[in-house]
């Protein structure tokens, strides 16, 4: 355990990247995450890492493919429009089962949008913005501390499952400074054998091939079955945080920055005598459906808060499966609600908890 430091989320993440033994970073500048590239460039030479600013996000994700396929820990980072450009590459990486880390410091969309914090890329991250049936393992930090922590976890999970891992943060988490303590982590203790990597066909082994092409549909279906089986195994990695859910009447569900705001709102509500709780998913894929289901058996309603028009709320509804009403409150396009606003949205909904869920989406 090191001393607590005050660091920007992007920089804490970058520092963790180096400490996690990442060997190669390829990226292209985009606000609000360019500090990751900048921090790594500054450190690269001395700390023995390949850090390359390249011509585009497209190039970056495909270089990650190459480097990850060559057996090293590799990563890229970007923000929303840049991540959209990586969708083909991500689908390839997931299909070829290459472990790597991709960071999306989400900003307000759609289009060029704003550079302010947003959670508008939830669907893209969790359902697969690229083509075909694949999944990223998606981690959602809510603090500078987790910006660092999830890098270590991310690389470990990527190697464990040979699957791309995405850290889905937002502009505020990237830009803000907060206390961070780097965990003890020696990459050597976390090395995974990668006998499949293209490092040169030596030692009498068969040649290694990294590919996602299986022109025979029978074969491609086998690949898909294998992937689906892997995704089922990944369900055990589900992570979340519960706050005051034991006796809660209404449980708020939120992740990342929105969860911090909800946490304050829950405290404020409790002070007012409202029995509020909070479920904060830390993994967005796999999603804590089981916990949602469990909670929905004992609460009067769930209230989802997101920095978008209502995306994760679908996963909450899938988990709740009609047992209690699910309501939604969101801000969009880079706007951030205050805890007061969130609390007001909860209070406004408490009266109507028996409405039909689908009509209840509200937009502040």
């Amino acid at each position, binding site marked *: 355990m090191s001393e607590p430091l005050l660091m920007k989320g992007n920089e804490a993440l970058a520092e963790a990247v180096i400490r996690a033994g990442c060997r190669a970073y390829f990226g292209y500048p985009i606000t609000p995450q360019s500090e990751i590239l900048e921090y790594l460039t500054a450190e690269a030479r001395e700390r023995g890492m390949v850090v390359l600013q390249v011509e585009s996000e497209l190039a970056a994700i495909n270089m990650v493919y190459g480097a990850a396929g060559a057996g090293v820990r590799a990563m890229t980072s970007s923000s929303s429009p840049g991540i959209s450009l990586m969708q083909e590459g991500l689908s390839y990486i997931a299909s070829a089962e290459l472990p790597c880390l991709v960071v999306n410091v989400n900003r307000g969309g759609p289009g060029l949008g704003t550079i302010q914090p947003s959670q508008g890329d939830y669907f893209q991250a969790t359902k697969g913005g690229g083509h075909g049936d694949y999944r990223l393992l998606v981690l959602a930090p809510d603090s500078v501390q987790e910006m660092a922590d999830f890098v270590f976890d991310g690389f470990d999970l990527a190697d464990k499952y040979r699957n791309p891992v995405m850290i889905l943060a937002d502009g*505020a988490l990237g830009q803000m400074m907060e206390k961070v303590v780097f965990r003890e982590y020696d990459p050597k203790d976390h090395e995974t054998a990668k006998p499949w990597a293209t490092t040169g066909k030596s030692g009498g082994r068969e040649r290694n091939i990294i590919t996602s092409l299986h022109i025979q549909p029978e074969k491609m279906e086998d690949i898909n079955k294998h992937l689906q089986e892997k995704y089922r195994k990944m369900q055990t990695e589900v992570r979340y945080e519960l706050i005051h859910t034991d006796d809660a009447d209404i449980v708020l569900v939120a992740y990342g920055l929105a969860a911090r705001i909800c*946490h304050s709102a829950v405290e404020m509500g409790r002070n007012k005598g409202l029995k509020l709780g909070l479920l904060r998913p830390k993994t967005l894929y796999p999603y804590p459906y089981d916990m949602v289901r469990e909670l929905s058996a004992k609460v009067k309603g769930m209230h989802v808060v997101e920095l978008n028009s209502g995306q994760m709320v679908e996963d909450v509804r899938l988990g709740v499966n009609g047992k209690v009403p699910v309501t939604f409150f969101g801000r969009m396009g880079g706007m951030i609600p205050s805890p007061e606003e969130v609390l007001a949205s909860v209070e406004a909904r408490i009266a109507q908890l028996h409405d039909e869920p689908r009509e209840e989406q509200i937009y502040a």
Partner: protein
Amino acid sequence: MTHEILFAGFGGQGVLSMGMTLAYAGLVEGKEVSWMPSYGPEMRGGTANCVVIISTKPISSPLVTRFDAVLALNQPSVLKFEHAVKPNGILMYDSDACIIPPSRTDITVVPVPAEDEARKLNNMKVKNMVMLGSFLSACEVVSIASVVKALAQVLPERYHHLLEINHQALLRGEQLVVDAATPIV
């Protein structure tokens, strides 16, 4: 107790590092702190600002739009953020850099002759520390001692010879407010 403070000015005036120093001082005192800069192309032309929150409780969002205190180092910042100060909050500004003074009466307006004071110290760069000293004098968010400790962290080793002058600036800033029983207009 939570303090939400905005620092604003031109880039190059040390606005961001002023905020960072305060945040670090909060950390030194074991408080919860966050520091959040404005970023983006509206920052073209060299304006810069950041929000520092120092609290005894976990901080929810580092992004707030109304502040307990605003420290403005130039004229556009006064114009832009005067109305973002919470009622009964503080607006402190460099009176040497502003022609149009703030006009609100429901807040405490504190003009600080920071530029002059920095000139007296023969180092224009420490204007920000003069302001910070004044601010901490008006509103004890952290102690000056913690700020001095923080400075040693924020400043890279190669600038540590400047610690002393910064310390002085802080003290001068503190003194300015002490001297003026009522705000200097």
